[in-house]
């Protein structure tokens, strides 16, 4: 087919890109295996790997590839995070979880916000750091509870209750963060804030009142059609959200919350492999965007923050478990289980950095998450 030849003419450069991509993926697979072997979350290894690769090779990945890969990764990641709990879960947790939720918010957002102020950051960056220290990693913790055979434990509903409330808080926090990092004038921002909160309320309302009906409309017997439908909705809403100034990730998260029922489970199973691929890419690309040389300067503040917020999370879990009538040992288990921070903190930093937040935020959150994503599962094993 001589006609096809001109198409292949430019393939030389792409061949190199493909090989590099393959190499990176194999590297990630290796790290994932390593993480599985020692019972750790792969997230810190992906980030560590990305940092080291960025330092060693200074890979010349085109700007737009990084941008698109990171965007798709963050959108799918947040969609799946939103999918994790149904509208009923969110509303149901309000009945028992408000007090532990408030304790959680006050104890864990404050240290991040305070450190941001101490470092002289602007409001948006302080709020971003507060969010990063507040939110536990539901991914790491859910896996941890399962691996340690604690699903049946009586403190577990209290632990999950805290995670669900955090998810609910994110529905409001993320749109607000999106507006804040956009950094428009206060008067304009006020309008966007009202819009952002309104959209979050709408998504929750849809989830609770129309979740089933919406799911039925989206449902289809064929996996292929369902995948395309759901992905289409997610990307469309994400795009619209980005256009109106609330970041794309936020739109995807709210779609995840609004979808529920059997369709949500099936769509989740279908998109999970895609999410895994792009989320891994997101963590690596986030790390690649950070200069390893900027890490030593933030190591001490990150370590102080990690120790302080590990302690406050421990207090949160202790309180939540006590609130649920669990005895001393169970309270200790709950407190230690909640310490891990992970994907959500990175996503928050990613949104803030993409919006032009202070250059120190990225490295600080990366170092912070590296510490607590590694330490969390280890500490959780300390008390049986």
């Amino acid at each position, binding site marked *: 087919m001589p006609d096809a030849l001109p198409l292949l003419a430019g393939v030389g450069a792409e061949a190199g890109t493909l090989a590099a991509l393959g190499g990176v993926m194999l590297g990630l697979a290796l790290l994932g295996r390593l993480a599985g072997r020692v019972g750790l979350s792969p997230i810190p290894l992906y980030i560590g790997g990305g940092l080291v690769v960025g330092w060693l090779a200074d890979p010349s990945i085109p700007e737009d590839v990084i941008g698109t890969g990171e965007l798709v990764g963050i959108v799918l990641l947040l969609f799946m995070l939103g999918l*994790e*709990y*149904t509208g009923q*879960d969110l509303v*149901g*947790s309000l009945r028992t979880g408000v007090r532990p939720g408030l304790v959680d918010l006050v104890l864990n957002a404050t240290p991040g916000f305070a450190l941001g102020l101490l470092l002289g950051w602007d409001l948006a960056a302080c709020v971003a750091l507060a969010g990063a220290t507040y939110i536990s990693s*539901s991914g790491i913790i*859910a896996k941890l509870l*399962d691996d340690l*055979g*604690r*699903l*049946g*434990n*009586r*403190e*577990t*509903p209290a632990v*999950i*209750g805290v*995670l*669900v409330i955090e998810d609910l808080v994110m529905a409001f926090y993320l749109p607000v963060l999106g507006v804040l990092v956009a950094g428009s004038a206060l008067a304009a921002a006020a309008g966007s804030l009202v819009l952002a909160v309104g959209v979050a309320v709408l998504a929750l309302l849809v989830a609770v009142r129309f979740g*089933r009906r919406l799911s*039925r409309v989206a449902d289809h017997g064929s996996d292929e059609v369902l995948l395309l439908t759901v992905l289409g909705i997610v990307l469309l809403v994400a795009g619209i959200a980005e256009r109106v100034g609330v970041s794309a990730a936020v739109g995807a998260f709210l779609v995840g919350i609004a979808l529920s*029922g*059997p369709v949500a*489970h099936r769509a989740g199973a279908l998109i999970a492999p895609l999410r895994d691929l792009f989320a891994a890419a997101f963590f690596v690309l986030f790390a690649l965007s950070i200069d390893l040389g900027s890490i030593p300067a933030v190591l001490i503040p990150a370590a102080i923050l990690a120790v302080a917020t590990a302690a406050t999370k421990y207090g949160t879990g202790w309180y939540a478990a006590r609130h649920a009538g*669990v*005895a001393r*040992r*169970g309270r200790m*288990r709950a407190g230690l289980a909640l310490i891990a921070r992970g994907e959500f903190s990175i996503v928050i930093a990613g949104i803030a950095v993409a919006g032009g937040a202070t250059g120190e935020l990225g490295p600080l959150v990366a170092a912070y998450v590296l510490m607590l994503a590694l330490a969390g599962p280890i500490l959780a094993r300390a008390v*049986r």
Partner: protein
Amino acid sequence: MAAISETPLPGIGVRLEFTSRGGQPIGVVVRRDGDRDLLVYSREDPDACKLTLHLEPEDVAALIDALGGSAVVARQQESLRQSLEGIDLEWVQIPDGGAAAGHTIAESALRRSTGASIVSVIRGQEVITSPGSDFTIEAGDTVVLVGSPAALAQGRAALADA
């Protein structure tokens, strides 16, 4: 039978729990994907499990069989449930002297008046699937209804009415 209490585990499934006659708390986590975990609580630390046994659907069927339940019925229910997402099933026992007892399904006009349909009748050990409209319901039968939750509530009220 011991009362089974239910605790939702958002993102995972639901935990069912009861205390055996010997005083041992036992639980089951029913996961969203259909897997189960059998839980045996520790006596020293009542908040923790001394045994958590992960079971896949096939293991569950085998265990039910071994415990003396009818695995076939359980599996039938499972497949029925899955094929009928969004529609619920309801089991109703016809009381002695119930309004529907002694009448055919057509005479009871259940579907027209309540929206619930009779898909199966369990009489003693026998299961009659998709009974015809000339099938006569008797007191003591267990009728399996299918329909929307509202229709089922009405259907139950009509059939359980003595």
